[in-house]
């Protein structure tokens, strides 16, 4: 009995859930309508703050799925925000092709819709592979290897669209970010599918264990016969692909591309979601469920902060305070201190009988 209580408190996932529930509780006290979900029969959609939180967290959740494994490998990928911009730019490029020939945005696409979806995903996957090759094969440091695409990616996106902002009214494309399925906004459906696919891939095969093994000790893993470089490459490629998916959702939400502002600070939010979810920045064990909750925590805080009428930029200060608390609790010396304290207490308890 005592043991299970201990393990619950040691589990970082439990902490994340408790944190999310606490924030929701505060939200519920401040705004009694917060949990209210309404069904609109004419549009066939559910409406409510909770649905909105899940909907708006879709991009970060999807990227953070890949980022979790990147961080479990002991790396980081700071190029994801730029890849979001790249995906949007190429999708809109294919939808509008030549703005001088087709100047008015409308319900049409120049290139086939399948290309509009596939080409951006393919480009982002290739960019992820580029990161993976640099890190896995050439053993570059992850920060510097992904820095290259973070700097160059936005340049590529700008050149693809000639530095212009395209808008589109093409219905199937707008459906990705604005449509609904089973009464839920479509981004939620995509998120559920992506998360389920990644989880099945990672947990039902040995891949997740491989990633953790490489993250704990790359050399030992290599000696035991794991192809570390291949695992690293797969993880970064997957992250690139997922950034592409997020980029399509983002550009569909705003029905346009914005190479300057699309995906700015997404890398930070994704890393934050992973860290909040209990995956340690030093690599090793990771929790995909934790990451999803981490992403929801970020979005809930953002919504709550908006509710107070605080500007969107200042949210960063709140995020900073939250990360600070989380990383200090997670840090090794504090953990040791807590453990010794607990041990001492237990001893005292035993002595007292």
């Amino acid at each position: 009995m005592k043991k299970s209580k201990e393990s619950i408190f040691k589990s970082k996932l439990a902490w994340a859930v408790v944190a999310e529930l606490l924030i929701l509780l505060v939200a519920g006290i401040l705004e009694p309508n917060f949990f209210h979900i309404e069904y609109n029969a004419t549009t066939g959609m559910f409406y409510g703050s909770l649905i909105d939180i899940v909907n708006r967290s879709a991009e970060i959740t999807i990227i953070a799925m890949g980022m979790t494994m990147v961080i479990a490998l002991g790396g980081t990928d700071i190029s994801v925000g730029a890849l979001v911009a790249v995906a949007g730019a190429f999708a809109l490029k294919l939808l509008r092709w030549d703005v001088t020939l087709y100047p008015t945005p409308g319900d049409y696409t120049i290139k086939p819709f399948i290309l509009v979806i596939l080409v951006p995903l393919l480009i982002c996957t290739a960019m992820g592979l580029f990161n993976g090759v640099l890190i896995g094969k050439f053993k570059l440091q992850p920060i510097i290897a992904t820095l290259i695409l973070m700097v160059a990616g936005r340049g590529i996106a700008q050149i693809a669209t000639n530095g212009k902002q395209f808008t589109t009214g093409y219905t199937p494309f707008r459906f990705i970010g604005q449509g609904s399925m089973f009464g839920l906004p479509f981004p939620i459906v995509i998120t559920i599918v992506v998360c389920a696919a990644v989880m099945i891939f990672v947990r039902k095969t040995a891949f997740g264990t491989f990633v953790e093994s490489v993250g704990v000790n790359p050399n030992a893993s290599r000696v035991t016969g794991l192809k570390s470089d291949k695992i690293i490459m797969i993880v970064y490629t997957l992250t690139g692909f997922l950034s592409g998916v997020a980029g399509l959702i983002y550009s569909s939400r705003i029905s346009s591309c914005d190479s300057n502002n699309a995906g700015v600070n997404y890398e930070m939010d994704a890393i934050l979601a992973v860290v909040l979810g209990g995956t340690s920045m030093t690599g090793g064990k990771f929790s995909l469920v934790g990451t999803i909750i981490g992403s929801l925590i970020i979005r809930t805080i953002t919504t709550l902060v908006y509710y107070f009428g605080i500007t969107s930029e200042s949210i960063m200060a709140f995020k900073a305070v939250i990360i600070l608390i989380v990383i200090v609790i997670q840090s090794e010396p504090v953990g040791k201190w807590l453990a010794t304290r607990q041990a001492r207490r237990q001893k005292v308890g035993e002595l007292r009988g």
Partner: protein
Amino acid sequence: MDKKKSNKLVNFVTNPKYLMVLATIGIFLVIYAAGIIMYGDKGFAKLRTFMMLFVDNAYIGISAVGMTMVLITGGIDLSVAAVASLTGMFIAYGTTVLGLDPVLCMAFAILVGVLLGLGMGALVTYLKIPPFVATLTGMFLARGVCSLISRESISINNELIDKMAGWKLYFMKYSGGEWVKIKPVAYINLNVVLFIVMIIIGTIILQKTRFGRNVYAVGGNEQSARLMGLPVDKTKMMVYGFNGFCSALAGIAYALYVKSGWNLALQGGELDVISAAVIGGVLLSGGVGYMIGTFFGVLLKAVIPSLITFNGTLSSWWGKIITGALVLLFVALQQIVMHGKLFKKKGTPHKKE
């Protein structure tokens, strides 16, 4: 005798320690020469164009001095641009809105910069938090506080600031019995003086002081440095504190340059600073790097946008792509120089950064 001398030269050039710096200087000279050949008639060869490289990038250079030291210890600091932006905001808000003395505002900004640097240093040193995460928190905090102060750009209208920003040192030549300004007017301003003084101070600290040798020792191998009895923790704290000082100084230089404070100023500036240092031959894994390399790294990064401006037809976004390519080139070069070959079979630096 002669052979000995040439041997010495060959040893100097092929020494991996200097090779990176020499490569940076070489590539800078090649690109600059190419610029003179291509756009010499448009005025690229003029002294004014050369001096503008300094004037326009002095703030990046000042920040890069601190960043170089942080990178040599094996750390990284993502907060520099946010701290610089915060400094600009302090000066703008203090002088324009509160009507305070600008010197007081600058002193306060530098104090805040140093304290933030020390705070992040403490997280890295004593709580063993990865520098990437610790400084990311600092970045969020600085940006958030910046936005809390004001969301709008505040212009600086202060006599002393105007005087400081307007101070120029002209190049003179002696002709016809009196000193006249060289035409077209080439000048250096206070920012450039600060930049060059900081580079000199940085060089002296790194090469001539005990503290500088400790910085290299910590970056080379922290464990060994600790076993040798070097003050590892103190050194790291001082390096982060110094970097905070440099960021605040860069913020002052930027405030003098644009004469305003804005919460979104210098977004992504930390990557400019890091890539300048990397292009200058500073090894991200720590232990290797020279101030003079960083100096030429800043110049090399500055000459590319200048060339694109002179070309006139290229999109300015090529600047970003070329910077990305340069980072890739130099990281590959580092890999070859430090490990003798591009493909490394044994060991992987993926884990540690």
